[in-house]
């Protein structure tokens, strides 16, 4: 144990000493400055360790002057204070190091004194146990801040400092008046003493007003809306290092003391006050940041918002009706939020210090400038936005769970704010990752790197805290695999090694997870994931490709998080893996050409995931398999996330570009397997959530329509798509629409259809995307009109694609037909005939694009520039062949999959097994009809071969001619281009269905986004920048607080 007074005394002494040394040997000041900070940090850390390890049992009470509490001043350092002290000095050390490397402004001794005393003031605020002493430390902090904010001596900095000073003076006047009145009312200045008196029944008619006076002063310092204009100005105008210290450390001390004051003064209305101001600040700030073009101000809005969230959590803590278990959750959330925000925001501001210019545009291309920058930035943005696996994510999880006990509206508020945060942070991320050229970036990156490493290091701690509080268990094997996946990053010097390691890891994963491969729903999907990932990974053979070094780690994380997802037994666990999967896939998509697509994907994913989290928080039991009947709305909320991943209309707007412009090696996984996680999730919802029969039918019918409309519209859009991968993207989404439809039927037959199609879709769409990757790799473009005639150059790929397309179109005798047959049979059996009509029509439309894929790529005229194109690389060809086999085999023997599905469905007690019989002559027999797959295959193949032989024997001499050698009305075509019909192939049809393909959803979503953005921009204007106005806000809001909450 280190006596906290030592920290304060020694720091003060050093500050005075620096003052002397500065006068004689300015250069030596550093020799006092840094060791002092290190000492402070270590001393606080030792105390924190003492508390955590239990060697310090109760809070350390320091009686200054030896007087017992009410008489003298005392410091009271408990666990929270020790932790906060450690945090403050850690951030201060980082900032000091960073500033020192960049060079302190001269005279440096002075700035060091200010810096040291700012940190000390913040620590003092949290340590002190006396109200007047609190005021003194508040002033120390404030004055040091005024000086530091102005320290860059830029006009903006001075303006910000001045505003801060005016507002800060008013706020400290309130605090001072409150403290003195408090003394007058209670006869004491000691926090514990006053708290004891109030708890003991002391009351006074003005006690409420007095307390509110103090709290209002503290709320100003806590930057609540709308009295935070000054704070935003500081974030924008002051030196980033100073901002890092203020936002990362000083404000947190104010937060702690706010909580302490509120709980000592214990007025019943305090928790409402905190909830209202915290929630309001949180939501409004996250929202106002939407169209912010100044990077630093954007970060400022984010800081203010995070602080709002903290205050909201504080409100929960102050609430008398919060159950004890939830209180523990909120406490853990607060700790994690503070940790998360301090380090991520320090890191971001210190990074901002390295970027020239403040506009978001100036940040373009910084991500490609240096790997350290990229790592720190990504980590910090992820953690500040509350994404897994960083502490912010767990904090959000805990907070939402606790808030759900309180009110669903609070959950909605928290999640809405979190969503808004994702919107603008990933807009930032998207702008930052734009740009081909490297931006010029400073190399003062150690401090941000350390901060972000700290965030990474805090992950296990955060996980443990959350897991304890939520009784959350994640499958250990999967966690190990996820960890190992990240280690693959270390092999970044060689892609080939990474590839090999990935293959090995998938194999190891399969070995590790072997016991889970049972004949149930999880096992079914697990098998698909592991086998599929292994095959698709094979095709990503790096060769001479320009893959990012984080491609393979992210790929593996996606794979194993999917494995974890299907193995989850609680909704928490499912949500955690769901988020990991989403964000890892976001990173992968962002590595491709479509940065904006990745952003839209991120936003919609987050929206879905948060809806899901909201739903989970309202569920009575977190166990997936415990049946619940909460009604259709909750089920819809839960399934939104899954619907987004399945890109169900109208949530599909991300899919085209995200699929089309993601790295070619990732798209097969995205389409073939990842979209199936949505299927898995909705299957769970159908099975375990909507149990009430009357609501089930309407819910299912709704989702049935959603599925079939997805199939219809996406198919239609695919017809007019001129980009190979985007066409396949639409097609993929449409196919998943069928799967959703099958699930929504909720009959054994419908589920059989859905599960069959799930597997089969992986085969043919995986094949097509792998082939597309190979083609794009060889041809160098994904634009269909630039291809054509490639059958001559890549016959194998043509053959594979041909079979895949036949399966895709659902034409017998290949495997695709089974899914269609089962689905239609199920639809008619269930009596959903209108849906059946649309489904039929959609699959007819699929023929249109099926032909387009084959024609525009492989048939027609070979373009001149593609004459030298070679067949796809060998690994791709191998994968094509591997995926080809099941298409044919399943075409003849669909029972190879139907039987396992029947067994899986047998486990799912709510459904029962499908009413299918198998006979030799009629094949598969349903109640409606029958279909003999083997016969069709044999018949077709036999007849085909027979006809071929007959033809070969009887036909005349066959002469092969060149591609330009066609009967063309006497004209002589000059180049293959003249003869190729590869652009606007369905223009005539488009004229007929113009009204159906109007991009309504995109326009509506964009309209909503832009309307909200415009509102945000209007709303932001309340920050007029005028000092008088800000002062008026402060006084007005304080009065409002007094008026409303005094009761």
């Amino acid at each position, binding site marked *: 144990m280190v006596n906290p007074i030592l920290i304060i005394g020694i720091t003060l002494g050093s500050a005075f000493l620096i003052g002397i040394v500065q006068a004689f040997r300015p250069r030596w000041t550093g020799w006092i400055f840094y060791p002092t900070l290190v000492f402070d940090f270590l001393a606080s850390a030792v105390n924190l360790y003492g508390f955590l390890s239990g060697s310090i049992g109760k809070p350390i009470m320091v009686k200054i002057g030896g007087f017992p509490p009410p008489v003298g001043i005392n410091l009271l350092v408990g666990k929270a204070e020790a932790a906060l002290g450690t945090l403050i000095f850690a951030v201060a050390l980082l900032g000091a190091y960073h500033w020192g490397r960049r060079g302190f402004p001269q005279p440096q001794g002075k700035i060091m004194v200010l810096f040291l005393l700012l940190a000390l003031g913040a620590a003092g605020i949290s340590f002190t146990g006396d109200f007047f002493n609190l005021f003194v430390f508040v002033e120390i902090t404030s004055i040091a801040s005024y000086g530091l904010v102005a320290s860059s001596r830029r006009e903006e900095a001075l303006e910000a400092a001045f505003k801060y000073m005016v507002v800060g003076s008013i706020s400290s006047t309130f605090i001072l008046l409150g403290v003195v009145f408090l003394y007058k009312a209670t006869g004491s200045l000691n926090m514990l003493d006053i708290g004891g008196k109030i708890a003991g029944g002391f009351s006074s008619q003005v006690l409420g007003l007095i307390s509110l006076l103090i709290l209002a002063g503290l709320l100003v310092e806590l930057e609540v809306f709308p009295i935070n204009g000054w704070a935003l100005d500081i974030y924008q105008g002051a030196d980033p290092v100073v901002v890092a210290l203020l936002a990362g450390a000083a404000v947190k001390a104010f937060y702690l003391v706010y909580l302490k004051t509120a709980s000592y003064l214990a007025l019943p209305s305090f928790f409402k006050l905190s909830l209202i101001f915290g929630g309001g600040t949180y939501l409004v700030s996250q929202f106002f940041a939407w169209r912010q073009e100044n990077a630093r101000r954007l970060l400022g809005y984010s800081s203010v918002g995070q602080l709002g969230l903290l205050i909201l959590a504080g409100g929960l803590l102050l609430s008398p009706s919060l159950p004890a278990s939830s209180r523990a959750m909120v406490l853990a959330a607060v700790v994690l939020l503070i940790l998360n925000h301090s380090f991520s925001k320090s890191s971001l501001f210190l990074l901002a210090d390295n970027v020239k210019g403040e506009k978001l545009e100036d940040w373009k291309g910084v991500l490609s400038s240096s790997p350290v920058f990229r790592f720190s930035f990504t980590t910090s943005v992820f953690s500040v936005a509350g994404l897994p696996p960083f502490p912010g994510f767990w904090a959000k999880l805990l907070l939402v769970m606790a808030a759900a006990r309180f009110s669903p509206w609070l959950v909605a508020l928290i999640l809405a704010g979190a969503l808004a945060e994702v919107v603008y942070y990933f807009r930032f991320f998207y702008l930052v990752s734009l740009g081909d050229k490297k931006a010029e970036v400073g190399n003062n990156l150690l401090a941000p790197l350390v901060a972000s490493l700290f965030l990474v290091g805090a992950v296990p701690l955060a996980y443990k805290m959350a897991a304890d509080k939520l009784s959350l268990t994640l499958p250990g094997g999967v966690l190990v695999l996820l960890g190992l996946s990240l280690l693959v990053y270390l092999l970044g010097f060689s892609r080939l090694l990474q590839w090999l390691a990935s293959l090995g890891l998938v194999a190891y994963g399969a070995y590790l997870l072997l016991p889970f491969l049972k004949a149930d729903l999880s096992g079914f999907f697990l098998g698909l994931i592991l086998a599929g990932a292994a095959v698709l990974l094979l095709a990503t053979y790096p060769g001479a490709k320009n893959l990012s070094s984080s491609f393979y780690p992210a790929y593996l994380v996606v794979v194993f998080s999917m494995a974890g997802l299907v193995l989850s037994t609680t909704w928490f666990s499912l949500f955690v893996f769901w988020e990991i999967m989403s964000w890892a896939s976001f990173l992968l998509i962002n590595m491709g050409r479509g940065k904006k697509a990745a952003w839209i994907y991120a936003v919609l994913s987050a929206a879905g995931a948060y809806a899901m989290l909201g739903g989970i928080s309202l569920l009575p039991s977190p166990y997936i398999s415990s049946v619940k009947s909460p009604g259709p709305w909750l089920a819809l909320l839960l399934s939104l996330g899954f619907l987004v991943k399945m890109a169900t209309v109208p949530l599909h707007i991300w899919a085209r570009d995200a699929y089309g412009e993601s790295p070619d090696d990732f798209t097969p996984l995205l389409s073939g397997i990842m979209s199936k996680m949505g299927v898995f999730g909705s299957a769970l919802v159908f099975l375990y959530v909507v149990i009430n029969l009357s609501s089930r039918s309407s819910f299912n019918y709704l989702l049935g329509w959603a599925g079939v409309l997805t199939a219809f519209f996406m198919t239609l859009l695919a017809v007019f798509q001129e980009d190979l991968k985007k066409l396949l993207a639409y097609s993929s989404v449409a196919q998943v629409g069928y799967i959703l439809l099958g699930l929504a039927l909720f009959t054994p037959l419908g589920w059989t259809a859905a599960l069959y199609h799930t597997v089969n879709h992986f085969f043919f769409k995986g094949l097509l995307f792998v082939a597309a990757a190979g083609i794009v790799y060889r041809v160098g473009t994904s634009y269909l009109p630039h291809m054509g005639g490639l059958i001559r150059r890549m016959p194998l790929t043509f053959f594979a694609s041909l079979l895949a397309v036949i399966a895709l179109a659902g034409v017998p005798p290949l495997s695709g037909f089974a899914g269609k047959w089962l689905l239609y049979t199920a639809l008619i059996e269930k009596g959903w005939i209108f849906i059946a009509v649309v489904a039929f029509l959609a699959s007819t439309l699929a023929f249109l694009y099926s032909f387009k894929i*084959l024609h525009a790529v492989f048939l027609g005229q070979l373009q001149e520039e593609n004459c030298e194109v070679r067949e796809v690389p060998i690994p791709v060809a191998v994968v094509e062949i591997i995926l080809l086999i099941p298409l044919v085999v399943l075409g003849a023997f669909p029972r190879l999959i139907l039987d396992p599905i029947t067994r899986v469905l047998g486990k799912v007690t709510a459904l029962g097994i499908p009413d299918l019989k198998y006979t030799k002559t009629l094949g598969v027999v349903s109640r409606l009809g029958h279909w003999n797959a083997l016969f069709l295959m044999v018949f077709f193949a036999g007849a085909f071969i027979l006809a071929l032989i007959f033809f070969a024997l009887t036909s005349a001499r066959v002469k092969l001619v060149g591609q330009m*050698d066609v009967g063309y009305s006497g004209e002589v075509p000059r180049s293959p281009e003249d003869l190729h019909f590869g652009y606007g192939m369905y223009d005539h049809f488009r004229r007929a269905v113009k009204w159906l393909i109007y991009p309504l959803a995109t326009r509506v979503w964009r309209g909503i986004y832009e309307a909200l953005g415009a509102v945000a921009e209007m709303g932001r204007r309340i920050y007029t920048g005028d000092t008088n106005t800000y002062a008026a806000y402060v006084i007005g809001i304080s009065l409002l607080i007094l008026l409303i909450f005094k009761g």
Partner: protein
Amino acid sequence: MWAKILYAFLTLIGGIAYGLLLGGISRKITARMQNRRGPTVWQNFIDLWKLFRKKTAISHGVMFYLAPMFRLVGGAGTFLLVPVVVGSPYLSNFSFGGDLIVLMYFMVLGCLGMALGAAESGHPHAPIGVTRGLSQMAGYELPFILSVIVLMVADKTATLEGIVRAQQGGILHWHLFTHPFAAAAAFISLLGMMTSYPFQVVLAPQEIAVGPPTEYSSTFLSYMFSGRSVFAVAKYLLFMNLFLGGASNLLWAFVKTFAIFLWPLFITNVFPRLRLEQSVLFFWTWPTFLGLVDLLRIYLVR
């Protein structure tokens, strides 16, 4: 089993011949309506023989080479999946292979193969024709599906046999009369299927020279030709089974299919041609409406 295959083979030959004959008849009737003498009704047999006997054949590649086989096998397969005479051990062909859903998808196979082969020819008219054909298919398929679903739901079966059995017991039990709107929708969509006027833009002999098979000649064309003929017969048979109560013997089959054959023929000669988008929109409005009427009826009654 072998006997069955033999019968199937014979039926197939008969089907091809019948198809060719119907083609000849249609040419003759058209000519007469236009005040021409026209070719003999056997002209199609003569053409086929001539093509088959050509000395050389020009090929543009593998897919081009295989397409006629796709076409023939697709057409023949469709034909064989439709029972000519329901219940007859031989004339019901291979209808055990699958129900109506299977049939409707199998029908596409031949067209798809042919389309791909034609597209490989490198002649731009071929894919233009194909895309037109596919688009038109998207048009007429909607009313057709509607009426098929009406029948399936009404009869609670998806097999052709079941549907035929449901129509037994007098002419008034034919679906043509029990579900007149659905039947009307289906028969209108038959016009699109047969690419007859006014829905003839797919082939458009004047501008794109019969579209898809434009580059085909000689033996290749003969295969295509026979495939096309038997495919047409298969469609007539299908309609017969769906709406006209099937056939109890071969004679009835001839009569009924001939009647169905006459329907597009009469339409085709008195209408101008529609543009593609007009056809599609036409199919998606009136016949669809008719189909929906019966569907709604079924839905509400159920």
